[in-house]
Every structure is written in structure tokens, then in C-alpha cells.
């Protein structure tokens, strides 16, 4: 161990060289990067599938392929983006890379389990992707696998469902690892209320991963059993109830939205005090709101089912709970803005991405209330309005927060800087492109454009074409960003390029294998800028 402490984690110090040294690593920083590379590939595949759908929708009627192909494409787009990009997303990449650094630990609690989670992640993704090429063609159920269609369609649902099951297992083990890490490996003196807020959000996220994912796991197994053995749980002709599937599915899949967004909020909470050079406003309120979002977020699932035929009581209860979850989310936004107030703000790329996040997240969040309200939901349910809403949350929120985190911790990850001007240009393209892409979908949805439709009425043409152009701009922005970050090495990064106060900025960039030569003793609150 002794000689490794002076080496950067990016150099090969172990038994193996090259690729093999990465594939056998138990270093949380390397595993974080491995998640990132894999996810980047999946993300680009998902983006390309999205752009293909936009091309097909450029004009009414059939352009390039038929409706069945379109169904297959939106299904795999959803499966890839949800299960392999945004759900593991920030938690797997930056939860792994940054969280142990922020709490002053050498590694996560179970490093080998951590590597195993990564292999499960890759295996699950491979199985899900294999569904495209095996059996009777790509699944066409949408990523939600709603019964009874998913139990009856001849397409290859089983592989996709099993892939999602394995991905869920990976997610559970990551969550388990993070909970134990945060409980047991915080630096001496770092009480829970002296812990930075990104680990707080990871902690809340990890609990949801652990407590919600098993429910979808068993539900997906039920789908497989339904297809193979006709167990009848969701088949009305055998006495089952398809709505029960929706319950079980959303008991997981709504909390899954918080698995995505909580770490995103955590990242923003790290970035804003650093670039405002000011103590975070309302530390405890932000920490507690993470737990509140996790807690209440577990009990809002049936708001996806307002038009499914559930009882009226169920509907108003879940409408109420849905509105409740808006409160802790709003507390966070308020506190971010409160932190910026009278801070000495420096408009560097991570901060700009964070601002982009706040703007897009607000639009996504407020339009969510439209659907949380029973009367208006009936109008917008299953329309492009919903598509726009969740893309504002999942891409505008999680995606932009991911890019913010990437620009924030990039110097720590690679020990290099990047070109700020190009990063800003990339942001401008992405921000404008994103809004052009999805804002028209709100309007189209209100006008009556259904989601998941291959064809549409001529009056929607203009909106769909604006969306397509927005999609191109967004793609250009993503390419500029990736080229800027990864095409050539930038200048060497200092240990603390942004003037941050959390522990990861006290160690070299890139960190050594052991992170901290001596585990620091923590005596103060984080974000002590005064």
C-alpha cells in the first residue's frame, strides 16, 4: 500500500496493465469512470434513437420506417435512457467518484461488491440491448411494460424485462454500498450534520434504491412468469388485474424518478456555494428536504394512474401527496437562490450548467403540478405534454446536472482543465436546442397530440418541425461539449481550481490511489466561506 499513496489513481500501479487493470479495479474512482464511459455510450445510442424518432415525426405520415419499427424505437430509447443512463446516472458515476472524497474516506465500504455492481450493470444493459436482435423482434411495449399487452405481444419482451431486472440488482447493490459507506466511513468528526450535501442526497437516494427496486424486480419476474407459465396475476381472463401491474410498477418507478433527481439536486447544492463563495443557505433544510423527498416520493406512485380506473379516493389521496412532494423540492430551489444572494458569483461553466438546471427543473416541476392535479391531468394524460414534462425533469434536470457535475469535478477526475469558452458555447447550443425541442411539445400536448404516436394530424406539423430543429441544435451542443472535454488534454489542473471548501479540493488532482494520505479530522460545517 505504502508506495501507491503517491501515485495518481489513473496510473497503473496494480498487478495488471492497460484495460485489464481497469476491469479488475476496486478503486471507487476508477469504477465511477467506468460507469461514465459505459453510460456515455448508452447515452449517445439513446440520443441517436431520439433523433431518429424526431426525423420520422418531421412530417405527418410515414417517412422512413413503419409504425411497428417506431414502437420498437421508442421502447428501446426509453429502456436505454431510463434504466442504463438516468437511473444509475449521477449516483453511480459521481456517487462513486466524488462521494467517498467528500466524506473523507479511502474507498466505499465494499469495494469488490462495487465492481460486481458494475459488471451487473454491463450485463443487464447487454441483455436489454440483446432484446433488439433476438427472438421475434424488438419489444414494442414502451419502457413501462404495461400488462396485459406486455404479456401478450409476440415481440421479445422477456429479454428486455430480464435486462431491467439485472440492472435493478446492480442498482440495489450500489445503494447498499453507499448507505454503509456513509454510515461507517465518514471522516472522524464529520457528524451527519457536518457532512456535505451531495453525500446527503446520495444517502437519501441509496435508501430509495434499496427499498423501491425490489418491488419492480419481483414485478418484472411476474411478467416473465406470466409469459412463460400464464400465472394470471395481470390477465383479466384468468381473474387477474392489469391495474395491479401498474401499481406494482409505479411503486418502484415513481421513486425511481427521485433516484434520478436527488443526486442531481445534490450536485447543484455543491456547485452553487462554491461559485458564489458563500455558505450554503439553510443547510439543514436542504439535508432534510432530501430525506423528505425520498420519504414522500415513495408514496405518490398512483398519480401515474389517474386515468386507469382506480378509485376516486385513491386519486385524491395521491393528488394530495403529489402536491406535498413539491414543497421540499421548492425549498431546495429557494435555498439555492438564497445562497446566490449577495454571493461573489463567478460565471464559470459548472455554475452556468447549474443555472440551466434550475431553470429547466422549474419548468419541469411546475408542469408536473398540472398533472398532479386531477382535473387537468385528464386533459393532458398520455399526450406530448407528459413527454415534454418528463424530458424537462430527466434531461433538463438530471442531464444538465450531470453535465454540471462533469464540468465541476472534471479537473479532479483527470487532473486537467478544459476550455471554458467552448464549454459555454456547448451550453448555449444545448440550452437553446433543448428548449426548442421540448417546449413545443407542451403546446402540442395541450392541443391534443398523443404521446407514442407514429403519425399525427397536419396542424401539429409546425410544432414537430421546431422540435426536430431543436433536437439538431442539442446534438451539436453535446458534440461540442464532448469534443471540448475529451479530444485533447488541457492545461494541468490545480488542486482546487474553483476555490471549493469541501474535502475533495484538499487533495491532489487527480487524487492518489488512497485519496487521503491521512484521513482528515473534520471540525467545522462544510461550505465555511465566511
Amino acid at each position, binding site marked *: 500500500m505504502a508506495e501507491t499513496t503517491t501515485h495518481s489513481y489513473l496510473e497503473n500501479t496494480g498487478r495488471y496493465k492497460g484495460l485489464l487493470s481497469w476491469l479488475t479495479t476496486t478503486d471507487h474512482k476508477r469504477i465511477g469512470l467506468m460507469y461514465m464511459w459505459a453510460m456515455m455510450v448508452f447515452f449517445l445510442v439513446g440520443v441517436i434513437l431520439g433523433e431518429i424518432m424526431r426525423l420520422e415525426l418531421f412530417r405527418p405520415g410515414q417517412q422512413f420506417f413503419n409504425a411497428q419499427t417506431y414502437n420498437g424505437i421508442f421502447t428501446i430509447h426509453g429502456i436505454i435512457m431510463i434504466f442504463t443512463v438516468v437511473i444509475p446516472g449521477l449516483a453511480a458515476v459521481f456517487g462513486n467518484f466524488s462521494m467517498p472524497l467528500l466524506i473523507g474516506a479511502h474507498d466505499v465500504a465494499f469495494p469488490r461488491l462495487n465492481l460486481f455492481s458494475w459488471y451487473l450493470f454491463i450485463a443487464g444493459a447487454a441483455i436489454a440491448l440483446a432484446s433488439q436482435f433476438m427472438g421475434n423482434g424488438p419489444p414494442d411495449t414502451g419502457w413501462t411494460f404495461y400488462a396485459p399487452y406486455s404479456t401478450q405481444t409476440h415481440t421479445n419482451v422477456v429479454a428486455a424485462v430480464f435486462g431491467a431486472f439485472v440492472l435493478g440488482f446492480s442498482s440495489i447493490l450500489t445503494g447498499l454500498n453507499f448507505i454503509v459507506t456513509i454510515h461507517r466511513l465518514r471522516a472522524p468528526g464529520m457528524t451527519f450534520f457536518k457532512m456535505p450535501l451531495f453525500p446527503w442526497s446520495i444517502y437519501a437516494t441509496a435508501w430509495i434504491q434499496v427499498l423501491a427496486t425490489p418491488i419492480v424486480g419481483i414485478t418484472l419476474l411476474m411478467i416473465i412468469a406470466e409469459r412463460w407459465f400464464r400465472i394470471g396475476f395481470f390477465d383479466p381472463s384468468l381473474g387477474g388485474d392489469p391495474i395491479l401491474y401498474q401499481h406494482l410498477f409505479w*411503486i418502484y418507478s415513481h421513486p425511481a424518478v427521485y433516484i434520478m433527481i436527488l443526486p442531481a439536486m445534490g450536485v447543484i447544492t455543491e456547485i452553487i456555494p462554491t461559485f458564489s463563495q458563500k455558505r450554503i443557505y439553510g443547510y439543514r433544510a436542504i439535508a432534510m428536504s432530501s430525506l423528505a423527498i425520498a420519504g414522500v416520493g415513495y*408514496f405518490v406512485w398512483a398519480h401515474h394512474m389517474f386515468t386507469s380506473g382506480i378509485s*376516486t379516493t*385513491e386519486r385524491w*389521496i395521491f393528488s394530495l401527496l403529489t402536491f406535498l412532494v413539491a414543497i421540499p423540492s421548492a425549498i431546495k430551489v429557494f435555498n439555492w437562490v438564497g445562497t446566490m444572494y449577495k454571493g461573489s458569483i463567478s460565471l464559470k461553466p459548472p455554475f452556468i450548467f447549474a443555472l440551466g438546471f434550475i431553470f429547466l427543473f422549474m419548468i419541469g416541476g411546475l408542469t408536473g403540478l398540472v398533472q398532479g392535479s386531477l382535473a387537468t391531468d385528464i386533459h393532458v394524460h398520455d399526450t406530448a405534454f407528459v413527454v415534454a414534462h418528463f424530458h424537462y425533469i430527466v434531461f433538463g434536470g438530471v442531464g444538465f446536472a450531470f453535465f454540471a457535475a462533469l464540468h465541476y469535478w472534471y479537473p479532479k477526475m483527470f487532473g486537467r482543465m478544459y476550455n471554458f469558452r467552448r464549454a459555454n458555447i456547448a451550453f448555449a447550443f444545448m440550452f437553446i436546442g433543448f428548449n426548442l425541442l421540448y417546449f413545443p411539445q407542451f403546446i402540442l400536448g395541450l392541443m391534443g397530440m398523443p404521446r407514442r404516436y407514429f403519425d399525427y394530424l397536419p396542424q401539429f406539423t409546425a410544432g414537430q418541425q421546431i422540435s426536430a430543429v431543436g433536437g439538431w441544435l442539442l446534438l451539436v451542443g453535446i458534440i461540442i461539449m464532448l469534443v471540448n472535454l475529451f479530444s485533447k488534454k488541457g492545461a494541468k489542473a490545480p488542486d482546487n481550481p474553483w476555490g471549493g471548501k469541501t474535502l475533495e479540493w484538499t487533495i491532489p488532482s487527480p487524487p492518489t490511489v488512497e485519496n487521503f494520505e491521512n484521513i482528515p479530522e473534520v471540525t467545522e460545517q462544510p461550505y465555511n466561506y465566511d
Partner: protein
Amino acid sequence: MEHTETHITDYRVYGWVLLALLVFTTITITVTWIDLSAFTVMVALIIASVKSVIVLRYFMHLKFESKMFTVFVVMVLSIYVLVIGLTFFDYLLR
């Protein structure tokens, strides 16, 4: 917290616990011979819950662990009960 690491339960304790569990098993079987109509399920679940608490506290050592473990177990079970309850607002009132 650390003193829990060395707690050793006596064999006899486990013997008594096993006996208690077998007694409760007998009770739960005997009760099925009595017709309790609507309460059958409830009684069965209550007895099963008592048995689980015994297993959790003694066999699974919750009694001797840090309090945190008990808090987590209670939290998880409460969440699960709430999930069932909220689902039944649909099925009971549809």
C-alpha cells in the same frame, strides 16, 4: 455501541425461543379449527407477526445490536405497511 460485538447468547436462550416459536405454531394451527370467520386472517397474521418479532429479536440478534438496526427494520416495515394500505384505498373503494 461496540459492546454489542461480544455479546454471546446462551444455548438455553435459543432453546426457549425455539420452544416459544413451536408453541405459537401450535396456537396458529389450533385456531384454524375454530371458526373466526372474518378474523381468521387477522389472527393468523398477528400470530405470525409475534413469531417474526421473536425471530428478529433473538435469532437475528436485534436485541443486542445497535439501536440503529431496529430503527431501520421498523422504518422498512412501516413503509411496506403504508404501501399496502395506500394500494388498498384503491381496491377497497373502487
